[in-house]
C-alpha cells in the first residue's frame, strides 16, 4: 500500500531530496570524523551542528507544509509543538546530568535546588528513560494538537480565526513556561546538558550522530508526508483546502481528516524539537514566541507551499541567510531579511520550487515550439491560476 502511495507521490525532486538527505546523513559525519582537520574536504564540527539545526527547522517546515500546503490550515503556533518536543528532550537531558550540576544534587536539576524544591515534581518522573522521553516528545505535542484540533475543527473555526487562536495558544504556552513555578526552569529554560544516551553531548562523534539522526528523521518525515499526500486521504485533504464546504456536502467528515493531519504534523514538529535541543544545547520559553511560528510559515512560503520539498529548501536557505547575515551585516541584516520576505512574496508567489518548476516548463516549451505558451505571467495571473488559494483562506 504504502509503496504504491509513494510511487504516486515520489516525483523527481522528492527522490533527489531523499537521496541527498540519506547521502548527507552518511557523508557529512564521515567527512567530519574520518578526515583530518587540515584536509580540504573536512567538514568542521561547527558546520555539522549548524546544518543539523537547519535540518530540524526543515522538519518543522515540512510539518507545517503538511497542514498549510495540503489542508489549508495556516498555523501560527507550530513552534509550540516544536518547543514541547524540545522540552521533553530537554527534561531527559536534564535528568542525565546527575550529580554533575553545580549543586551536585543527584536527583533535582540545578534550578529546582535553587528554588528550594525538595522533590521532583510528578511530571518529571520517567524522564530519565530515553524511550519514555521520546514517547512524550511525540505524545505531548500530539495530544495538545488533538485536543486543540478536536474542539477547533468541530466548531468549524477556520481561516484567520484559526490562525489567530493558534497564535494565542503558543503565546499562552510561552507565558506558562516562562513562570518559574511551572517547574520547567522559567526563562532560563533547560541547559548545561552533559550527555545523551551515555555519549558526551559535546563530542564531535555525538554531534555527527545527531546530524545524521536529523537528516534521517527529515527523510522519514518526507516519506510519511509523501505517503499521506499521495494517498486517497491526501486527495480529500486537498479537497478540504480548496472547497471545505463542498467536501463536507459530499459526505466527508472534514473535521476527522483535518484532525488526523493536524495531529501528525504536530508530532512531526515535536520530533524536530527533540532533535533540535541537544544540538543547540538549550531549550527555553523563547521557542514558543509567536515570531518563531511566523518565521516557520515564512520558510514554507519561501521554499514553496504545498510542495513538501520546497519548505525543506526554504528552511535551510532562510536560516543559512540568517546565520550569514547576522555575522556579515550585524547592523543591517534585518533589512536584508525583511527585504527577502517582501521580495519572495511579490515576485516568487510559488516560492523557489515554483520558480524552478516554471523555469523547467519554460525550457520544455522552448524545446517544443509547436505548443507556444505565454512566456511570462504576472504575479496576479499566477495567483488567479490557483483558485485553491482563496478558498483555503
Amino acid at each position, binding site marked *: 500500500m504504502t509503496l504504491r502511495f509513494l510511487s504516486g507521490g515520489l516525483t523527481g525532486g522528492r527522490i533527489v531530496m531523499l537521496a*541527498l538527505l540519506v*547521502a*548527507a546523513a552518511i*557523508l*557529512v559525519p564521515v*567527512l567530519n570524523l574520518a578526515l583530518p582537520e587540515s584536509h*580540504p*574536504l573536512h*567538514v*568542521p*564540527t*561547527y*558546520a*555539522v*551542528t*549548524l*546544518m543539523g*539545526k*537547519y*535540518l530540524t527547522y526543515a522538519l518543522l517546515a515540512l510539518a507545517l507544509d503538511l497542514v498549510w500546503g495540503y489542508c489549508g490550515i495556516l498555523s501560527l503556533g507550530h513552534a509550540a509543538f516544536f518547543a514541547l518536543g524540545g522540552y521533553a528532550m530537554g527534561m531527559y537531558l536534564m535528568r542525565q546530568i546527575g*550529580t554533575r*550540576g*553545580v*549543586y*551536585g*544534587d*543527584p536527583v533535582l536539576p540545578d534550578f529546582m*535546588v*535553587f*528554588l*528550594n524544591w525538595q522533590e521532583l515534581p510528578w511530571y518529571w518522573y520517567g524522564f530519565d528513560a530515553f524511550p519514555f522521553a521520546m514517547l512524550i516528545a511525540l505524545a505531548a505535542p500530539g495530544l495538545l494538537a488533538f485536543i486543540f484540533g478536536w474542539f477547533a475543527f468541530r466548531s468549524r473555526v477556520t481561516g484567520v480565526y484559526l490562525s489567530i487562536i493558534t497564535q494565542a495558544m503558543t503565546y499562552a504556552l510561552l*507565558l506558562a513556561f*516562562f*513562570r*518559574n513555578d511551572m517547574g520547567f526552569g*522559567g*526563562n*532560563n*529554560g533547560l*541547559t*548545561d*546538558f552533559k550527555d545523551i544516551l551515555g555519549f558526551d553531548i*559535546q563530542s564531535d562523534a555525538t554531534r555527527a550522530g545527531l546530524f545524521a539522526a536529523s*537528516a534521517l528523521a527529515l527523510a522519514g518525515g518526507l516519506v510519511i508526508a509523501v505517503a499521506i499526500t499521495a494517498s486517497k486521504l491526501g486527495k480529500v485533504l486537498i479537497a478540504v483546502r480548496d472547497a471545505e464546504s463542498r467536501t463536507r456536502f459530499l459526505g466527508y467528515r472534514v473535521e476527522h481528516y483535518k484532525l488526523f493531519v493536524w495531529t501528525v504534523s504536530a508530532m512531526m514538529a515535536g520530533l524536530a524539537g527533540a532533535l533540535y535541543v541537544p544540538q*543547540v*544545547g*538549550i531549550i*527555553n520559553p*523563547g*521557542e514558543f514566541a509567536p515570531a518563531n511560528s511566523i518565521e516557520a510559515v515564512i520558510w514554507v512560503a519561501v521554499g514553496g507551499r504545498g510542495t513538501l520539498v520546497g519548505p525543506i529548501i526554504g528552511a*535551510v536557505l532562510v536560516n*543559512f541567510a540568517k*546565520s*550569514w547575515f*547576522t*555575522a*556579515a551585516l*550585524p*547592523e543591517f*541584516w534585518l533589512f536584508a531579511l525583511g527585504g527577502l520576505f517582501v521580495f519572495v512574496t511579490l515576485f516568487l508567489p510559488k516560492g523557489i520550487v515554483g520558480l524552478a518548476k516554471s523555469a523547467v516548463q519554460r525550457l520544455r516549451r522552448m524545446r517544443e515550439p509547436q505548443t507556444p505558451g505565454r512566456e511570462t505571467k504576472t504575479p496576479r495571473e499566477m495567483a488567479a491560476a490557483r483558485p485553491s488559494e482563496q478558498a483555503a483562506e
Partner: protein
Amino acid sequence: MTVKHTKSLSGLALAAMLASTAFTGVQAQEETIKVGILHSLSGTMAISETTLKDAMLMLIEEQNKKGGLLGKKLEAVVVDPASDWPLFAEKARELIEVNGVSAVFGCWTSVSRKSVLPVFEELNSLLFYPVQYEGEESQRNVFYTGAAPNQQAIPAVDYLMNEEGVERWVLAGTDYVYPRTTNKILEAYLKSKGVADEDIMINYTPFGHSDWQTIVSDIKTFGSAGKKTAVVSTINGDANVPFYKELGNAGIKAEDIPVVAFSVGEEELAGLDTGPLVGHLAAWNYFQSVDTEVNAEFIDAWHAYIGDDTRVTNDPMEAHFIGFNMWVKAVEKAGTTDPDAVIDSIIGVTVPNLTGGYSAMMPNHHITKPVLIGEIQDDGQFETVWETSGLVVGDAWSDYLEGSKDLIADWRAPMSCGNFNTATGKCGGSGS
C-alpha cells in the same frame, strides 16, 4: 578551504561548505588579535546591549591607538545574536571556532550567559560578562565583571534599613532567575535581620510588562500598614519605563515609599522624565556622575566616539572597561593570548576602575568593586548618597542561600574548582 573544493560536493554538504567559507571571510592581510563582541543588536535586548557593543569598539580602538597588544593590532569581530538565546550559543561557537577570537566580551541576560557557557567550556575560550547577575555560578572560562548580589543588593537594603528606617519591604521583579535569586537572598537576609514574614511582599511580572496599575496600587496598599515601606525593584529593562511613569503619576513619592532598583541605570532613565522620580534610588558600582578624573576622561572619550554628547554612560560599560583592561594586562603578563595562560595570569590583576579606585580579579573570577547608592536627580543622573568605605569582593555563592552557603570558588591550582564544598571538602556542589 577554497571555493574549488566546495564545488566538488553537492546539496546540503555544499551548504555546509558555503557556510564555513562565508564565515571565514577574507583572510586579514596583517596578523591581528581578534576580540569577539557578542551583544544583541536587534530584538528585545538591543536596547541595552547595543551601547555595550559601541563601548567595546571604543575600548579596542583606544587600545590600538596605544599600540595594540603584544605588538599586534586588535581586531573586533561583531556578531548579532538577535536576543535569541540559542543563537547566542551558535554565535559564540562561530566567534571561537570560525573567527578564532582570543576572548569574547558579551551577553546581558542570564539565559544568554547560560546558553553560551557550555560552548566556552568545550572550546576553552574566555568570556567577560559585564552585567550584574544572580551569582550562584563560577565557571573557569568566564569572568564576571558585573556585580554579584552581595555587591549590589545587600548594601542597598542595609542603606534603606539604617538610613531610612525601612521596616516593610516589597520585592518586585521580573520573573526570571536574577530577580528570583536576588529576592531569595534578600528575603533570607531580611529575615536574619528580624523582619517578619508579613512585612515582605514578593511580586513577579512578565518581561516587558506594561500595565502597572494594579501592582502600583498594591504597593500603595502594602505601604499603608503603618510602617515605613520601601520597594526593592529587580524589574528588568523595558518594563521600568511604564513602571516609573505609573509610579510618578500615582503620586508615590520617594519620601513616602522609596524604590531602590538594581537594573535601572542612566540608560534606562534616558527614556523618562525624572522630575517626579527624584529621590528614588539605585545601587550600582558606578554612576556617570562620579566626580573623578578618570571618569571624566572616559565620558569625554565616549562622547567623542559616539558623536553625541547627550549619550550617557552606565555601570555595565564600566564593567567592560575594567574587564577589557584586565584582559589586556593579563595577556601582557602571560605574553600570549592562550586562554589557559590568561586564566592563570589574570587572577590578581588590578586595574583602575572609573570611581577612583582599583578593581582586582579574584580567584573566584569575580572582581572587587565599591558599592554606590544613588538617588535619581531631575536631570536623569544619579547622585551618590552613600558608598561603601572600601571595596567589596564579589561572592559567587551566596552565604544566605541554603544550597550554596558552603560553596566557594577558587580557580587557582591546586583547587581549581568553581563549586568547592567546604563542608565535605570536595569539588562538585553540595550534594552527597
